[in-house]
């Protein structure tokens, strides 16, 4: 595998074509292949199930053609023994196979596809190059339908009773993208049961789909029938009013749900990990990544169905658990690398060496490498130029090091593949010859030249010469740089002593780091102090009390209640924050900060709330249940109203927790008084994922669910001293009235208005008032500014288990920094020439990382200052600086413009 250069010659000549599973079988691949173009590592492998040699004992075309000698037919699977202290299992899931039910007609027409197949159809790298066409005739469809809950929320054999949690949002995404692809007004319809866009910003996305005319049809599918002549699909369904309806579409997409794979089940069995009734790993709400077996942790869709951001958070949470279990042995296997001493070449005339790579035939086959070498020898400053067969091979690396020393080179250009993959390797080669790694430049003559101009050898050769000339002109101007080191304070400050803050503090303390837990109130606990049970029925008060006990007594945790954060100075590794406790200020030094300031339950100014004692919010109901003296006697009927203050114009987001909380509380009322009439008046029931079981149980126990028409008035008033709720039933389109003894308002979660943390840490909040993470999918607990993390409700509405997971994820990200003695930053950072700085502050506005800011000198002058620890070298400051004071090391104006000037000669 080390030898493979991913040139693809083997695959091109392989005679065996088989179905391409990556493109969901919609096209073919070869027996020797890479799974997909962006695969890491980018190495070809042989599928021995289909390879002609493995089947018939002859062929080996790939071995003969491979220029690198990388094909090895003798390679065998080997069993390895590894000693580890903990195990994380993340086997993922499969999707439901819709062949199981003939209702969906899957397999009867190529124009009925699964959502994963549709993803590939939409992909630029997919079977149709990203052009949306029907598989049957490659014609553009005019009407596409999505069928939701295929294999999910279905108790029939072969399906899953749970909600897969992701399909509503991905169907909306596919519909929006399909509409964008098909500029001629594609008609899209999504047939659904409940629309569950409960994730952060997902409700806005749903609203956007409605605005772009995606149709949403609440329905039950009776069957899909293919017209054999047109290959169109007729969908037979029952609408919400119970009418039978038919509609014809060109294409149907089945939104298939998650299904546990047999491999995952057998892995769990081999490891002795308990499974639940769905064959998912069994976990609890407070320990949601711990399996039944100590030391084995689980994350991803094998824990429960979930989307990307939640999977990423959960993965970091498992890392935090492992870091705490293995805290004792942290660093025990680390080996220190010997760094060669660099030669000081400043002031020397450039002595440039140019190595031109043939990359087997990948470069040499399409352009004239000897001509390029010859040309390089004529360039100013070049004292050596030669070609290499494979520049990246171990022996060539050693040869290059020798040549650099022998010829006394002080700058090096390698003309080969791309710096994106190979710059670090060659920088090390240069460093091994005692040359600073920044005195090196690559010319990309493979990916951006020979491979894309393979039919025009002259032009490719000319371009390669130009690229080498540009690289030589740049390398002669480059200056040695040294990667700055920044000291790291090993303490964390956690702002907010709710469940998230406590969780993060305990995890970091277990890892051996000191945590300052700052809480504004006089007690720890936050919103969790009011919650009765977690969704799986765990006693929140008992668990919370245990956690507060641990936080209060742990030697590594300083709990500061009645304390507010007043001022934050410094940056990652070196924060100095001022806090005030009952009027007394103190400065705390810390390396990282976790913002876990939570959110609030909204208090409505409608529906008789605050004037009627029997009108309560969800948390107030929970508090009553917590009160041992509470009795449901005398309550003959109760009504829950969902989405009070959520999913409205002023707050266009879903609060995520209220549907489950209402269902749980409805069940509790039924338990206390089985004769009570309990109604839940809702818009969409969003008991997502495994929470669907609660919804099913509530219906079985007689809780009555009524969907109300949101567009029509929902009124609560008094009638003869009774509370009266009146609304329009969505299915019947008739007004209904209920007179309950108890009215419960699912009021949703609102952020803390003008959260001081935003200005103290200079981090952003979104339009709804929740903090904006660095990347919605892949960096869900970090901010763009390094060393500042977020967890819990401050990030967006979420239930207890997910808040705990996010707090652990934040702790894991914190420990990745705290565990270092020093952090090393790339040398490519900004610098400010103080002589030219006029203190205008435009750089500060332009910087996305809070890395550059104005400082006031003693004489009152304002000067811009770079915090190298935070700088990513993007150069936005340099681009906006009106005087040229701000620039970027390695990419200053001269170092870029020399390439512009030499691009065409």
């Amino acid at each position, binding site marked *: 595998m080390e030898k493979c250069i991913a040139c693809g010659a083997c695959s091109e000549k392989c005679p065996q074509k088989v179905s391409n599973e990556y493109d969901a079988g919609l096209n073919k691949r070869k027996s020797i292949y890479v799974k997909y173009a962006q695969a890491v590592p980018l190495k070809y492998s042989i599928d021995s199930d289909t390879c002609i040699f493995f089947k018939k004992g002859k062929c080996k075309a790939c071995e003969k053609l491979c220029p690198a000698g990388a094909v090895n037919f003798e390679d065998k699977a080997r069993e390895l023994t590894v000693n580890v202290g903990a195990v994380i299992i993340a086997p993922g899931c499969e999707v439901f196979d819709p062949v199981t039910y003939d209702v969906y007609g899957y397999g009867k027409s190529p124009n009925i596809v699964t959502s994963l197949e549709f993803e590939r159809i939409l992909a630029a790298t997919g079977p149709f190059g990203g052009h949306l066409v029907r598989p049957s005739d490659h014609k553009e469809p005019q009407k596409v339908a999505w069928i939701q809950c295929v294999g999910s929320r279905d108790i029939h054999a072969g399906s899953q009773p749970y909600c897969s949690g992701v399909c509503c949002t991905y169907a909306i995404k596919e519909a929006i993208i399909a509409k964008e692809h098909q500029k001629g007004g594609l008609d899209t319809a999504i047939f659904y049961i409940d629309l569950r866009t409960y994730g952060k910003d997902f409700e806005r996305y749903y609203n956007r789909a409605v605005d772009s005319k995606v149709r949403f049809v609440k329905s039950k599918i009776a069957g899909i029938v293919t017209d054999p002549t047109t290959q169109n699909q007729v969908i037979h369904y029952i609408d919400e009013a119970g009418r039978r309806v038919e509609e014809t579409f060109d294409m149907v997409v089945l939104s298939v749900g998650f299904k546990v794979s047999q491999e995952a089940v057998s892995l769990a069995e081999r490891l002795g990990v308990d499974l639940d009734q769905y064959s998912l790993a069994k976990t609890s709400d407070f320990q949601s990544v711990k399996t039944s077996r100590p030391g084995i942790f689980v994350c991803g869709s094998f824990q429960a169905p979930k989307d990307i951001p939640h999977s990423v958070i959960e993965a970091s949470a498992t890392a935090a658990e492992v870091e705490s279990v293995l805290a004792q042995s942290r660093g025990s296997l680390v080996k220190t690398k010997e760094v060669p001493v660099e030669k000081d070449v400043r002031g020397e005339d450039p002595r440039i060496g140019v190595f031109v790579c043939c990359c087997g035939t990948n470069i040499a086959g399409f352009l004239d490498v000897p001509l390029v070498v010859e040309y390089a020898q004529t360039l100013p400053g070049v004292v050596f130029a030669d070609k290499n067969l494979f520049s990246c091979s171990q022996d060539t690396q050693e040869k290059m090091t020798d040549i650099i020393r022998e010829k006394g080179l002080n700058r090096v250009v390698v003309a080969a593949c791309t710096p994106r993959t190979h710059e670090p390797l060659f920088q090390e080669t240069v460093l091994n010859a005692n040359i600073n790694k920044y005195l090196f430049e690559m010319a990309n003559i493979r990916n951006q030249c020979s491979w*894309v101009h393979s039919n025009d050898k002259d032009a490719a050769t000319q371009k390669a010469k130009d690229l080498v000339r540009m690289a030589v002109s740049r390398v002669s101007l480059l200056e040695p740089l040294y990667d700055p080191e920044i000291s790291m304070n090993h303490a964390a400050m956690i702002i907010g002593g709710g469940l998230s803050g406590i969780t993060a503090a305990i995890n970091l303390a277990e890892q051996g780091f000191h945590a300052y837990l700052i809480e504004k109130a006089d007690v720890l606990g936050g919103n969790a102090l009011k919650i009765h049970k977690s969704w799986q029925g765990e006693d929140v008060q008992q668990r919370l009390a245990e956690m507060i006990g641990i936080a209060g007594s742990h030697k590594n945790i300083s709990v500061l209640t009645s304390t507010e954060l007043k001022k934050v100075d410094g940056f990652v590794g070196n924060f100095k924050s001022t806090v005030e406790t009952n009027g007394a200020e103190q400065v705390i030094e810390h390396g990282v900060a976790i913002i876990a300031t939570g959110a609030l339950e909204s208090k409505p100014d409608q529906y008789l709330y605050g004037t009627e004692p029997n009108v309560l919010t969800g948390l107030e109901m929970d508090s009553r249940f917590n009160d041992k003296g509470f009795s449901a006697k005398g309550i003959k009927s109760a009504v829950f109203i969902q989405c009070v203050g959520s999913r409205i114009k002023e707050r266009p987001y879903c609060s995520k927790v209220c549907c489950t909380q209402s269902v749980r509380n409805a069940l509790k009322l039924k338990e206390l008084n089985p004769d009570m009439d309990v109604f839940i008046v809702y818009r969409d029931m969003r008991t997502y994922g495994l929470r669907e079981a609660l919804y099913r149980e509530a219906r079985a126990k007689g809780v009555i669910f009524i969907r109300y028409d949101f567009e029509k008035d929902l009124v609560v008033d008094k009638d003869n001293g009774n509370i009266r709720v009146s609304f329009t039933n969505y299915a019947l389109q008739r007004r209904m009235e209920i007179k309950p003894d108890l009215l419960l308002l699912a009021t949703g979660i609102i952020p803390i208005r003008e959260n001081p943390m935003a200005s103290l840490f200079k981090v952003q909040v979104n339009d709804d008032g929740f903090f904006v993470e660095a990347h919605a999918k892949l960096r869900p607990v970090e901010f763009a500014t390094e060393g500042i993390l977020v967890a819990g409700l401050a990030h967006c509405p979420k239930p207890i288990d997910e808040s705990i997971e996010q707090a652990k994820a934040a702790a894991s990200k914190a420990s990745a920094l705290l565990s270092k003695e020093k952090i090393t930053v790339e040398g490519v950072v900004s610098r400010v020439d103080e002589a030219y700085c006029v203190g205008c502050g435009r750089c500060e506005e332009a910087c996305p990382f809070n890395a550059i800011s104005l400082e006031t000198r003693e004489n009152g002058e304002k000067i811009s200052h770079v915090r190298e620890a935070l700088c*990513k070298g993007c150069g936005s400051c340099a681009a906006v600086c009106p005087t040229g004071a701000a620039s970027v090391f390695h990419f200053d104006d001269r170092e870029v*413009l020399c390439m512009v000037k030499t691009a065409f000669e």
Partner: protein
Amino acid sequence: MSEGFEPKIVAFACNWCAYSAADLAGVSRFQYPPNMRIIRVMCSGRVNPNFILKAFESGADGVLVAG
């Protein structure tokens, strides 16, 4: 403009996205005319308007900023 006109194009490409995309075009063997010279920058935000003017001054017929 004569029929044989071959424009000279300077492209400033962000290391993290457009430059990688140009690499991926190579991996996928997409063929395109050899008239463009790509200059890698760490962010398209680095591209000062002056860079674009300098490119034209140096003889470029077109400038692409991709990021």
